């Protein structure tokens, strides 16, 4: 924060004034097409006053800091537990809430939680590619789609069950990860982004137009839910635990791989590709590896999605979906596993919670992301190299 204040605000009151003015104007301009001039005007006045006051307050940061220290002293006098015990308590609290959710939550909440679980796996997969290896992939949804359709087709056309089609579908997805990686390997940054974007669109268009196989935009219905110990997992609460296991396994494995020779090589490639190859990392192989490993998890998420919905159509795999997954990774903190979990949960939950204000929810979400990038570019739970 202090970095921001020192570089962007300057110290003169005029500077602060214009800065508040620009932010307020920008947001009212965004708002204007939705609610007309009057509402935009009100928003402008409110925002401008608020920002200007905030800026003035910042000037008195020292005194505010003093107050905070006093508070801290007061709290430490209350003998709050040490940070380690506190984090154990936090983990305990979170796991209790997560484990008992179906007991008190209504179906709607569980449904969102299941969706969050699928997106956590997806975002973790993308985090391997974007967060660890530093390869911007804008077509990640393609692998999600390939996973979902592989299971859907194997199940409906050939009648293969969930557990048998899983390894088959995952093989298909991982292979497609390799295939995309081959042309993409020579590219970097924005060029890579365009190629992956194209790949995502190609996959969606193929699914949309290959009527004889995928039934085109009508999608494939009648997909079997997974079964376990001889019984189908049809009930939502069962499915919740089913997904939870997959999420835990995904996080567990990705964490271990990230904290190994392979993960370190990925991060080194992200930091400096030439230096990585000069210390003996085969950058080509490890980029391939990263793409395929990320795609694998997208495939897992896709299979779970198809099994849960029992229906797939190209509509679920648009470019916006890729952007959403990327937002989850960025929001939570690129390269941070707990951060990406948080990002996925927030971006699934938030639009649902904001349903009350229907029209503005995308606006709120968008401006929230803009704010985040300005004030906390490293994401909610930052730290690239974690």
């Amino acid at each position: 924060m202090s970095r921001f204040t020192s570089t962007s605000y300057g110290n003169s009151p005029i500077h602060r004034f214009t800065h508040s003015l620009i932010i307020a104007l920008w947001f009212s301009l965004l708002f204007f097409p939705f609610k007309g001039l009057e509402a935009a005007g009100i928003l402008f006045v409110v925002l401008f006053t608020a920002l200007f006051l905030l800026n003035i307050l910042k000037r008195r940061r020292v005194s505010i800091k003093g107050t905070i220290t006093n508070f801290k002293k007061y709290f430490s006098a209350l003998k709050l537990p040490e940070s380690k015990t506190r984090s154990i308590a936090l983990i305990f609290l979170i796991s209790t809430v997560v484990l008992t959710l179906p007991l008190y939550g209504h179906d709607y909440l569980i449904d969102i939680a299941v969706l969050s679980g699928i997106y956590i796996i997806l975002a973790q997969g993308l985090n391997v590619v974007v967060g660890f290896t530093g390869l911007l992939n804008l077509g990640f949804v393609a692998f999600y789609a390939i996973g979902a359709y592989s299971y859907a087709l194997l199940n409906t056309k050939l009648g293969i069950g969930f557990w048998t089609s899983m390894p088959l579908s995952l093989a298909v997805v991982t292979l497609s990860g390799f295939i995309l990686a081959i042309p993409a390997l020579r590219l970097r940054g924005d060029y890579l982004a365009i190629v992956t974007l194209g790949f995502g669109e190609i996959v969606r268009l193929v699914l949309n137009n290959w009527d004889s196989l995928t039934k085109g935009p009508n999608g494939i219905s009648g997909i079997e839910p997974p079964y376990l110990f001889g019984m189908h997992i049809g009930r939502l609460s069962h499915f919740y635990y089913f997904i939870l296991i997959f999420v835990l396994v995904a996080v567990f494995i990705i964490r271990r791989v990230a904290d190994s020779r392979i993960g370190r090589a990925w991060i080194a490639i992200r930091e400096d590709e030439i230096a990585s190859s000069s210390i003996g990392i085969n950058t080509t192989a490890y980029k391939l590896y990263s793409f395929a490993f990320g795609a694998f998890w997208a495939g897992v998420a896709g299979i779970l999605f198809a099994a849960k919905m029992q229906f797939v159509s190209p509509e679920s795999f648009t470019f916006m979906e890729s952007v959403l997954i990327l937002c989850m990774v960025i929001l939570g903190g690129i390269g941070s596993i707990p951060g990406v979990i948080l990002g996925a949960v927030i971006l699934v939950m938030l639009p649902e919670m904001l349903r009350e204000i229907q029209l503005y929810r995308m606006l709120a979400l968008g401006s929230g992301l803009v704010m985040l990038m300005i004030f906390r570019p490293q994401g909610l739970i930052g730290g690239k190299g974690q």
Partner: protein
Amino acid sequence: MTSMVFLLEVRDLTKHFGGIRAIEEVRFRANEGSITSIIGPNGAGKTTLFNCLTGITSPTKGAISFSDREIAGLKPDSIVKLGLARTFQNIRLFKEMTVIENVMVSQHCRTKSGLLSAMLRSNRFKNEEKAISEKAIEYLELVGLESYAGVLACSLPYGSQKRLEIARVIATEPRLLLLDEPTAGMNPQETGEMMELIKKLQELGKTIILIEHDMKVVMGISENIIVLDHGVKIAEGIPSEIRSNPLVIEAYLGKEHSA
């Protein structure tokens, strides 16, 4: 008389970038265990020579034999595996990784645990990880950075970053080390420490080739000096020969005008 042991032999190495002749038919040899300096004015092709030797760019023509293997045109990581590694003129550390991670990751080519053992945390994996971190501490001790193991590489001061780069390159277990301006931007004290370090590396049995501008360093530690100018080798010899070579003086100071 027994024949000399050459660890590196460069023959007629040429690199053209379009019409620019970055290096032109350069040939030299480096003895096992020696320190060789490559000097020359800016743009003489010194770094391009390093890039060719380490596979970052492939030479237009010529041969590079390293311990009796032809390495011209190989990829950088295969060359490192054979035991030829380098540092960079402008520091290229992994900035967002900690100091120890920088040294751990560069043992990559000397380790081999794969995805499965990382997932299962097999005993072999654990032993390898332990060996990696122990060795990393050793290498950090060599350059005197062991107390900074846990900090981010980007937060180190400049001189320490240069030394970390050396620790990182040593971790690849090279036989031949190419140091690109190891003392650039250092104050006299840091330069002295760096010279000590380079000598220590030689005592450890490493062969060293360095690009250097600081003549005190060049004359102080090198056994053999190669002078490049406009991509061409104009002189080679022991420090005292180079110091009095008229061609070298001309390349650095320009031709004397006849008054």
